[in-house]
């Protein structure tokens, strides 16, 4: 059971991505998924491990910091890393430009834009800080595309929350 604030934040991010994806023009198929993860096994070949199927979105908790804000509260800074990975499933040929475009669109419109929006408030508690921007660390990974016909994109999203010095939610 996840009780740590960093994990609860990731679970909320998973829910937000899933809700946005479901509401999009191309909702997830049954083989697609969004999940919180630490070290998922991602295989692009059938001989090493179960080969990845569909579009998988992994949400990773990252190190966080606490800074005293007042005589009773802290400001906690969290980072959440999101990995979007999908292997081109056509039997022959390379991934088409349209196929890659659709994944880049997904990363921007379903993941990055909603989660980097400074007006976002998650569970009445977490919010993207204005002074620290979200980043797209890897828009697409060219070696992954060429060697494995796989789309691979990584984003880092910062969030803040105000807590008491004990780490409890400020009522």
């Amino acid at each position, binding site marked *: 059971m996840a009780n740590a604030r960093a994990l609860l934040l990731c679970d909320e991010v998973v829910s937000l991505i899933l809700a946005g994806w479901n509401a999009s023009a191309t909702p997830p198929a049954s083989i697609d998924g969004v999940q919180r993860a630490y070290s998922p096994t991602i295989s692009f070949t059938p001989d090493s491990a179960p080969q990845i199927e569909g579009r998988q979105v992994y949400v990773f908790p990252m190190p966080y910091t606490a800074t*005293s*804000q007042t005589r*009773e509260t802290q400001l906690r800074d969290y980072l959440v890393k999101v990995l979007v990975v999908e292997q081109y499933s056509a039997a022959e040929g390379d991934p088409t430009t349209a196929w890659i475009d659709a994944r880049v669109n997904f990363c921007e419109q379903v993941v990055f834009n909603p989660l980097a929006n400074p007006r976002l408030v998650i569970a009445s508690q977490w919010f993207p*800080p*204005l*002074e620290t921007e979200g980043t797209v660390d890897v828009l697409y990974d060219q070696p992954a595309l060429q060697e494995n016909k796989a789309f691979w994109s990584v984003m880092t999203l910062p969030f803040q929350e105000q807590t008491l010095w004990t780490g409890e939610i400020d009522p």
Partner: protein
Amino acid sequence: MSTAAYLGRNAKLYLNTGSYGTPTWLEIANISDLTLNRAWDESEANSRESAMKMILKTLLDGGISGKMRFTIGDSGTTTIIDALNSPTTTLDVMCLNGPQTTNGVYGLRYPCQVTQGNEDQGLGVALYEDITFKPTPTTNPPCTVKVSGGAPVFTVV
């Protein structure tokens, strides 16, 4: 004797929500930085009796200034900002360098007016009020405070 450093984050700003004679001290905890000034004006008191420059203390500047995080609905915050906006409201504050029950803690207590409340509304900042309290004349005089016997002891300045 403890030689441990005493930290600014343990200092306290209290607002009296009771009467002056029977105070009820509400801690204003949404404070980050705060400065309690204690600077005496000086008058020259030189004479032929000595080559040393001499002074006499005259008036004490005991203003309090600091940063209070704006917190909607917090009673202390609301009272202070209402006082800032009012041309006449007087508050009774006590600023100590520790809890009001810890013997040896020092500070000042006085009726005051809130004379400044500058607020930086920049895009990347949490909202803080740069507030300043200054003593104001009432029938209750400003006091120095020393906590003794587990309670503040007031001495008129």
